[in-house]
């Protein structure tokens, strides 16, 4: 096994645009005999849109799960904001500004759009349980403040009309949008999007692309994105990492990746 080198320079806190926000180094993850990720290293720079692509089963979602702590890799180091660690935990990841959406929409189905996005504000609200129990004082005040923030997100994502609708009743495309809203409500520094456009029609894809670009440019949010629609990926992303069978086979700008023979082989197949 390769020795793991801690490349963090001990600097934490603010990271300037263009610098490395998150790096995974020599990460390997297996479930029993199945090796989902084999010795993958790549980084995500502050302010960029980073795509992770690859054929089905290449380990893309596993990679996101490692980054936000749902899976714990057997080997490797994750360096986030200059702090190296063997494993993340979902709660810690959330408190440190990593938000995500899920491949199969994971919303709170019985709750309204508004409540779903409000749930994303949980970490930003710091009133006591007692204040909430009597619904007085700071609890009441903060409800109003955070409601305003949530309304802005609702306006931004153009979902005003479904504010009070239980999300379980919404069509798939809108559910994906609400889920993005919930992630945005946490005011993330790094936003992980797992197939944000799966199952969408052309118009919905265009809307979603527009939101992703706006979030990236207006809020400066760094994004890692898994997506199968190559047109979207090539248009949106600054850099692309390509996985196949759990290994990183290419990493670079859309142009570089498009002309990489290994990538072409992985997608089109090679005669054996």
């Amino acid at each position, binding site marked *: 096994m390769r020795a793991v080198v801690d490349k963090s320079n001990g600097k934490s806190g603010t990271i300037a645009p263009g610098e490395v926000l998150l790096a995974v180094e020599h990460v390997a993850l297996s479930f029993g005999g199945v090796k989902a990720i084999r010795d993958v290293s790549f980084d995500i720079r502050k302010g960029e849109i980073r795509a992770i692509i690859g054929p089905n089963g290449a380990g893309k979602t596993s990679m996101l799960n490692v980054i*936000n702590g*749902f899976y714990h890799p057997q080997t490797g180091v994750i360096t986030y904001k200059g702090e190296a660690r063997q494993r993340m935990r*979902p*709660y810690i*990841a*959330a*408190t440190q500004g990593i*938000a*995500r959406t*899920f491949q199969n929409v*994971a*919303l*709170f*189905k*019985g*709750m309204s759009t508004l*409540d*779903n996005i*409000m*749930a*994303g*504000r*949980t*970490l930003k*609200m710091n*009133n006591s*349980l007692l204040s*909430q*129990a009597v*619904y007085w004082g700071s*609890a009441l005040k*903060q*409800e109003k403040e955070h409601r305003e923030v949530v309304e802005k997100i609702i306006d931004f994502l153009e979902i005003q009309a479904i504010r009070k609708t*239980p999300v*379980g*009743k919404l069509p*798939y495309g809108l559910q994906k949008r609400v889920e993005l809203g*919930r*992630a945005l*409500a*946490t005011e993330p520094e790094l936003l992980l999007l797992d197939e944000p456009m799966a199952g969408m029609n052309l118009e919905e894809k265009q809307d979603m692309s527009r939101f992703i670009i706006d979030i990236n440019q207006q809020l400066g949010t760094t994004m890692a994105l898994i997506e199968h629609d190559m047109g979207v990926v090539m248009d949106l992303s600054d850099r692309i990492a390509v996985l196949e069978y759990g290994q990183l086979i290419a990493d670079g700008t859309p142009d570089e990746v498009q002309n990489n023979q290994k990538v072409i082989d992985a997608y089109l197949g090679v005669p054996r």
Partner: protein
Amino acid sequence: MVSLGNFIEVLSGGLLAGVLYSLVALGFVLIFKASGVFNFAQGAMVLLAGLALVRSLDFFVAKGIPFAVAVACALLFASLVMAMTAWIVERFMLGPLVNQDGLILFMSTIGATFIIEGAAQLIFGSDVYPLKLYPTDAWFALEGVFPGGILVNKLDVWGGLIAGILVTVLAIFFQHTKTGRALRAVADDHAAAQSVGIPISWIWFVVWLVAGLVALAAATVWGTKLGVQFSITFLALKALPVLIIGGLTSVPGAIVGGLIVGAGEKLAEAYLGPLIGGGIEYWFAFVLALAVLLVRPQGVFGERIIERI
């Protein structure tokens, strides 16, 4: 026999008795709503809360502390016991089972039932302990309107009052606060809740704490009615039809379910009893629940089951 006064007396007695069932059912609803777990241990928690209350009350009274102060101290002590139980349940039972199936969590609460029942009686004793927190005498209302008035049990009125307060507070807590929202979020999806930074272990502690306090409220009333004893755990069985009728996910449903069961069984006993033989009270609620299951499986007030295919 069938006079209006008599009818009202039976009905009001039934409604008030129903509220007492609701108090127990409320604990079930809370945990189910908040963690998606059917908590089999709720009856045991009522027993534990009752025993902690009555034994510490006896202790404080024996020390010569004035009764009102002793009651306050005993309530505080029992609350602490329930908080500790919530912490232990979260730490050693639910914590390791995050992201597991609801059925697995349900099975673990069956295990918790026996541990709580055993521990409660081991620590606080297993006799019948009388508790007298509320007046238990009868009260004759509307004597001017009906000859002889309408007999109401004061204890039942207290039970109704407590249930009313609990429901109001809980309804606001669930709908409009950060923790309330987080509770519902955890019930819907563990992974998604974690991803937005909801601390699941804290939420589960809060849920079991609130359910414990509701169990304590139920224990004060039922303990006064029956004395604090092991058979109080069987209240959980009486709460089942209440839950099915009211819906597992609805706080107001637990109250209305209780009212329907309470009024239904008393009226059936009084008016159907002479025709088909007595003892209806014991099974009527379950037949009612069965009928509701056939027509509206999510209960009268339960959340509609939404599923996209």
